[in-house]
């Protein structure tokens, strides 16, 4: 028996978490691009908090409000300059209750 896993809503998972969002100061930025690089495009699948989405013009956009600061996107895309990654200011971002 294979269990089909479809339509998992990560939003429902993130809803459990505590965040202090630093409004207007995103800690991750995607460099404006015509077409995404291979690694940048991969983020639209690998993202644990679904921060990265492909817009209807085929460009990758980031909304980092649910970011858990794992650094996966940094490891894949910072060196090439595809993204710019900083920690949120002290006290902001995800706050794990259990971790």
């Amino acid at each position: 028996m294979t269990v089909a896993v479809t339509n998992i809503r990560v939003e429902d998972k993130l809803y459990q978490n505590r965040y202090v969002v630093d409004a207007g100061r995103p800690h991750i930025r995607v460099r404006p691009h015509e077409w995404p690089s291979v690694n940048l495009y991969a983020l639209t699948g690998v993202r644990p908090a679904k921060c990265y989405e492909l817009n209807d013009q085929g460009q990758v956009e980031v909304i980092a409000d649910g970011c858990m600061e794992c650094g996966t996107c940094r490891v894949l895309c910072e060196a090439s300059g595809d993204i710019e990654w900083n920690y949120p200011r002290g006290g902001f971002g995800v706050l794990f209750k259990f971790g």
Partner: protein
Amino acid sequence: MTEENFDAIVIGAGMAGNAAAYTMSSRGMKVLQLERGEYPGSKNVQGAIMYADMLEKILPDFRDDAPLERHLVEQRFWMMDDSSHIGMQYRSDDFNESRPNRYTVIRAQFDKWFSRKVREAGATLLCETTVTELVRDPKGRVTGVRTDRAGDVILADVVVLAEGVNGLLGTRAGLRDTPKPETVALAVKEMHFLAEEVIDQRFGLKANEGCVIEAVGTISRNMAGLAFLYTNKESISIGIGCLVSELAATMESPYGLLEKFKTHPSVKPLIAGSEVKEYAAHLIPEGGYKAIPQLFGDGWVVVGDAAQLNNAVHREGSNLAMTSGRIAGEAIVQIRNRKKPMVKEHLSLYKSMLENSFVIKDLRKYKDMPALLHTNSRNFFTTYPKLLSQAAQNFVRVDGTPKIDKERATTATFIKARSRWGLFGDAVRLARAWR
């Protein structure tokens, strides 16, 4: 804030940072510890298993008041296909001892407790403070830090970088490289709450006994990956981790993998009826010995996950973090006692001491394992678990087929999947890397 001088600044209040800060402040050093989270532990994620021996070397009486969940009496290792698992299991009443060897912990709570000990030892802790930059003198020696709190520089004789696997400061300052996608795994994890008695019943446990399940197989969809399930007192930590390079190549969704593991028929009944209270993600250093960066320099040392000190084979990370933090602290105390400057020449003592500890010895033993497992991930993480599971089913299912035919069929599936040479080669390569 006026300009202030400290003997040491520790960046980060995780296992490594707390161990370093405690070691130095309890020996009379003036220590400032900086943590970007609201409280220590608020940015930290671990399975989590905590090893008593390494903590005892720092806080011998930790059992008196540390927030420990369960001590482990049973370890299960599963190899899974989509409908089955075959496993090894070790359980011993010997682990019901007066000073148990391993405990499950919940990091946010544990780190708060550890941090309290650090402050009681005299260190100053500043939370909600992100260090933005290492300050260096014209010769390149690290002399302090700049934070997002105030523009002023905070100076210290030595800076201990305990900033974690995704540490920005050391990499931005050029002290080490950013981890490569093939040297880190992304793990996602959920906390499932259940009544204590329900957990006891489901795992056959009593009075604070704990059980650990670790699993490989089709759950990681041909990638190098490991799933885990740890029993806490009133909750179950469940998660899965896979190599970032392979996740990027396959574009598999990490929470999709977790969901698949959770709904596997062997796992689903164990967590049925639970209430999920948190979803977390974190990187794990997987590069082993060959990924260890430069560990010290003029005015700085790096410890714990930031230094890639993680034994992926035994899934030990926090004890290497604690031990490297403690050893760095001890080395710094000794250099200070001899009134020597905290420069590269003297801080090399940290590396020498670390090389003589289990930390580097263990990592060196498995130095070829990451390359082997990561380049043959499909074979080791999918093909073999699947073959073994099929072989077990063939062995136990009674259907009138003569046993000799069953054995032949099983042998044939192994040879078909890997060829005789392939099987032989895999065995030799594994034995060599393990040696």
